[in-house]
């Protein structure tokens, strides 16, 4: 019919326009619904905060962050980057050890995070002295540190390994409590030696080697004669510290936990107020203290 001929064309045009509209609307809709939208780059791929890097970029990052961390020890983000870019094999090793341990396997599947928001501080404060939770809280207060200052993992290209790295960072403070080491230079070096022996992370090894360079003679002596060998021995023989579900063991006593992990008590008691030597060397806050996410006022 004549009206068919007259109306068919505009109808077809309208249909085309409407198709274009639909596709545009669909695209916009998808943009609004997904946070990253269509990207040619693969950011935020495997976990929130993940940045995809090529091997060349990882190598450059490792070198650059190493130099930056050595130049300015307060750049704890650079130490974090160094750890992530160099620690691939060690992380795989750690992850396998966790998998082989039943409690470690639970940690890997449940993925607990240690943050102030997840800790019940009042309950922990009410625990008896000598219990793990109470001692951990005391450690946080005495050394003025907080578990929330850990940088997020960015450059590890495996979601599970990224969690292992994050757990390692968050467990660091708990390790201080377990080993009875404060966050001054000597305590940090001792913990670094323990971690290097335990985890095999190159960043720990580097810290373990460079840390003692900033200690004075008396502390070096105590490090090499008693603290150091103790840390290395226990690091090697203890159970994997990442495999413990610390969040469920606040009530357990520290001694009990140490025995379970096969860690001998420290040969020397260092106190958090033991800072006399560090005052003589103002630059000694050095590489180690940032690990606790705090720059100490010395």
């Amino acid at each position: 019919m004549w009206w068919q001929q007259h109306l068919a064309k505009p109808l077809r045009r309208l249909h085309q326009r409407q198709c274009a509209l639909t596709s545009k609307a669909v695209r916009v809709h998808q943009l609004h619904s997904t946070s990253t939208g269509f990207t040619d780059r693969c950011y935020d791929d495997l976990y929130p905060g993940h940045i995809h890097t090529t091997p060349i970029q990882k190598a450059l990052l490792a070198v650059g962050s190493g130099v930056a961390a050595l130049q300015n020890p307060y750049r704890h983000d650079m130490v974090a980057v160094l750890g992530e870019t160099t620690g691939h094999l060690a992380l795989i090793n750690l992850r396998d050890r966790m998998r082989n341990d039943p409690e470690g396997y639970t940690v890997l599947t449940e993925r607990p995070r240690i943050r102030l928001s997840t800790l019940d501080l009042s309950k922990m404060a009410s625990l008896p002295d000598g219990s793990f939770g109470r001692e951990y809280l005391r450690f946080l207060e005495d050394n003025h540190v907080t578990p929330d200052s850990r940088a997020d993992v960015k450059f590890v290209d495996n979601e599970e390994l990224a969690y292992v790295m994050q757990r390692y960072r968050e467990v660091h403070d708990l390790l201080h409590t377990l080993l009875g080491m404060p966050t001054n230079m000597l305590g940090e070096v001792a913990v670094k030696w323990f971690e290097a022996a335990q985890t095999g992370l190159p960043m720990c090894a580097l810290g373990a080697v460079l840390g003692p360079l900033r200690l004075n003679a008396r502390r070096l002596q105590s490090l090499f004669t008693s603290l150091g060998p103790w840390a290395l021995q226990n690091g090697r023989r203890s159970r994997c510290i990442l495999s413990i579900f610390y969040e469920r063991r606040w009530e357990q006593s520290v001694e009990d936990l140490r025995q379970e992990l096969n860690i001998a008590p420290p040969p020397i008691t260092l106190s958090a107020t033991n800072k006399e030597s560090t005052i003589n060397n103002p630059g000694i806050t050095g590489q180690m203290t940032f690990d606790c996410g705090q720059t100490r006022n010395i």
Partner: protein
Amino acid sequence: MAASMRLLVRRAIRLSNRNIQVTAAARAPGRSGCCWGPSSCRCLSDAAEDRSTHFGFETVPETEKAKRVYKVFENVAQKYDVMNDAMSLGIHRVWKDMLLHAMHPQPGVRLLDVAGGTGDISFRFLEYVRSQQERQKRRAARSMQTPSWQDISNNYSKEDEDGPLESRAVVCDINKEMLKVGKQKADSMGISAGLSWVVGDAEELPFDDDQFDIYTIAFGIRNVTHIDQALQEALRVLKPGGRFMCLEFSKVTNPVLARLYDAYSFQMIPVLGEVIAGDWKSYQYLVESIRKFPNQEEFKGMIEDAGFYCVQYQNLTGGVVALHSGFKL
């Protein structure tokens, strides 16, 4: 006949229903149903409100791009100059000097430095004009070595009227952090005369028409959401005879150099950003936004479309940077 008519009407209704659904999906504000015909055009304009643009290689709604660009420069402001030196190995200073050389400003000229941020162009401008003024004074002094009595009496009468020609530079930037850093730099360098700092959007400049002799925008125009609007604003605030000058990253012509440049951009620059400034993503945005910017010829066309005359460009460092220039006549 009635049957085919009914078929047509039904088809029309179906199409109009789909239009309504599409409008709803596109979240057009407050449009109750629309029947096909004139309102289909309205539906199209609703889609335009949700138009998207590029943010690096990402696609974002236009309204969001400005916010994200603001965040990027807020984050990098403190380390901006250090990063420029590190990324370009100091060559950015040469580019900016070449811009000033092409500009060749004379004393008494008013400059508007848009996206001027940390003030590099404005400082160079004031320095150039100052040295030009000194050269002029020296020339005048040399020519006045043996004055006649007539010249001396003329000088005495001229002294009151002719002060040194005041050149003024206005640094305009949308980002307050960048301006803050620029101000600190100016204070530390002791430059204050003839310099003002204004917060403003390149797409909507807070100045009257026909105000400036020279308008520059160095490494800023690729961050603007609507480049054509920025160009029109440039035309508006320039005096007739005024010059528009734009320094911007562009397409490298040589294929070998292009490969090297790409490799360097994508491998090295984000790493430098992470190590020096602690910000990978901002510098990833930077290298991506360079790739998204139109090439030399296209940008020249855009400048001509805005209404500038005698538009020409000059490639620096093999096309890594292009200097575009146009006049308002």
